[in-house]
């Protein structure tokens, strides 16, 4: 057995637990110790459920002792982004307005993890209600990138990605509305997948933009990501937008890792100007590697992608302003300003929301309120919905020519904490390559493809596939991952400074 249980992959851990080589309790303790040792500096977690994790691990060990069958990830520790409900466990969404709230029910994702014997360690930090690219919009302070503690870990799911990169958990749950799984994966040297819209239930996922939100897996290897994907995906009657179709064989695809004869398209509009030199270099090298592995690589134009960001920043705020109306201090969460005479319900709502929401959340609610207001609806929200159609058509046309599309995941490597905090538009540009897939509802993966020579920080490559062809992401990702590992000699996270 490896001396450090936190260094194992999820697949290795599951095998060790199933064979009795390590107990699930030992594995959980090793990760809880790691969290205790490093999380003061990383701040990936908002809540660590020591008691619950050890109890879940002990239950897995008991089942094994009794000779009962174990699910593929039984006994593997995992961190959950704090936007997903877990019964009785604080769920804040990174916001003061939900501080202290303990949901009375499990999200479907959380429930499936529990049934599978996955050991939930705790809840991870995020930008408030998943709006941001740096976790700096968390009301509880930012998460730090394990590669360089002065850098952002990406966002909004920076806590989940940092927990995985810092070996605090081999697996994490993220959610991706405009890139919040893929962008943090890219800047932390980890793997993240946004599944097809509707592939993973949104029941119990606190909604930001209901037509864009999608939960998905974060891990250190493509196979681990696939194992988690298979555990959480699948039709759920509790989510009316859940796809009633079988989950593609993502685990089989990750094990196949054979791209001979596949057609791969490099998106003309995602790359070039505005992308950091080291990001472009690692991306170009990876594309060459895909050719060496037997794929046919061509350039494909998606002419409306340059308008995706603009459409997204009208659609998202519009849906957000509607979804976040429920946080009004009446049924759950914070309520302030009631003790001043006999205030009206509207006054209490206004005071509660001003006290409970942070700057970025207020900005986006007001932007959405504006875009949906009389006189502007057609020009803003209506036009953005038409652009969404054009982007979906771009994808459809591209996937007639190729099996998957690739691009850099992000324009740059991790930037410095504080660098873009006062410039919302600069912050929004981080999502320029990830947003099209959210608008079209198609799946995307980010995987690490090296370090940028100029700053030594991880670079991510994005793979995009047609809706419900998530397995293609895993096939291509695993093939590229294996070829890169062969070249490097050891996993990329071994290059990260020790914490």
């Amino acid at each position: 057995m490896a001396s450090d249980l936190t260094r194992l992959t999820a697949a290795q851990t599951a095998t060790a637990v199933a064979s009795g080589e390590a107990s699930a309790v030992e594995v959980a303790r090793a990760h809880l110790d790691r969290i205790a040792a490093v999380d003061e500096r990383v701040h990936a977690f908002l809540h660590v459920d020591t008691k619950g994790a050890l109890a879940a691990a002990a239950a897995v060990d008991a089942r094994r002792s009794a000779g009962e069958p174990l699910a593929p990830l039984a006994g593997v520790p995992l961190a959950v982004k704090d936007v997903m409900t877990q019964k009785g466990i604080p769920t804040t969404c990174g916001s003061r307005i939900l501080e202290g709230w303990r949901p009375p029910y499990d999200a479907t994702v959380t429930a499936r993890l529990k049934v599978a014997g996955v050991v939930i360690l705790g809840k991870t930090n995020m930008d408030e209600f998943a709006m941001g690219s740096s976790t700096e919009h968390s009301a509880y302070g930012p998460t730090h990138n394990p590669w360089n503690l002065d850098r952002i870990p990406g966002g909004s799911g920076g806590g989940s990605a940092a927990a995985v990169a810092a070996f605090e958990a081999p697996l994490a749950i993220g959610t991706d509305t405009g890139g919040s799984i893929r962008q943090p994966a890219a800047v932390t040297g980890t793997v993240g997948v946004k599944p097809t819209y509707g592939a993973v239930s949104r029941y119990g996922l606190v909604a930001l933009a209901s037509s864009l939100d999608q939960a998905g897996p974060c891990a250190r290897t493509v196979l681990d990501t696939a194992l988690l994907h298979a555990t959480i995906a699948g039709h759920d009657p509790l989510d009316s937008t859940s796809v009633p179709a079988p989950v593609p064989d993502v685990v089989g695809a990750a094990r196949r890792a054979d791209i001979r004869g596949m057609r791969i398209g490099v998106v003309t509009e995602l790359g070039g100007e505005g992308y950091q030199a080291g990001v472009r270099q690692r991306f170009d090298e990876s594309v060459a590697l895909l050719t060496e592995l037997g794929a046919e690589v061509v350039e494909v134009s998606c002419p409306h992608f340059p308008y995706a960001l603009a459409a997204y920043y009208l659609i998202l705020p519009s849906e957000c302003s509607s979804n976040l109306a429920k946080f009004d201090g009446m049924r759950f969460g914070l309520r302030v300003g009631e003790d001043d005479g006999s205030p009206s319900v509207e006054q209490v709502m206004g005071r509660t929301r001003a006290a409970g929401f942070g700057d970025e959340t207020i900005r986006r609610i007001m932007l959405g309120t504006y875009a949906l207001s009389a006189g502007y609806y057609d020009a803003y929200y209506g036009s953005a919905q038409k652009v969404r159609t054009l982007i979906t058509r771009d994808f459809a046309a591209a996937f007639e020519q190729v099996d998957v599309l690739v691009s850099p995941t992000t324009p740059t490597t991790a930037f410095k904490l504080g660098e873009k905090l006062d410039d919302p538009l600069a912050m929004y540009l981080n999502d320029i390559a990830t947003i099209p897939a959210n608008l079209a509802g198609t799946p995307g993966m980010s995987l690490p493809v090296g370090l940028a020579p100029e700053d030594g920080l991880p670079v991510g490559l994005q793979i995009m596939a047609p809706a419900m062809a998530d397995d293609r992401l895993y096939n291509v990702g695993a093939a590229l991952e294996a070829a890169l590992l062969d070249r490097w000699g050891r996993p990329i996270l071994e290059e990260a400074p020790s914490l």
Partner: protein
Amino acid sequence: MSETPSITRDDVAHLARLARIDVPPEQLDHYAEQLQVILGAVAQVSEVAGDDVPPTSHPLPLINVFREDVVRPSLSNAEALSGAPSVESERFRVPRILDEE
């Protein structure tokens, strides 16, 4: 539209009221400036698509989903009220909803 309408502090105050957020007066100019910049950057959407392009509101062609109308287990009264800021007689207690006489 060819030009972005300018956003004034009065506009922000109006939006804040619609959104039920008591934005302090000293922050109105700050938000006005930022919303103006963001709207200036996103206004280009109106120049892209012609009248012949249908809008997409949702990525899936799902219309509606029904289930059998049968009683299923659900949250108890106490569970549903467990996160409420104020409770009275097994109900959510809220501030007054009507104007005072």
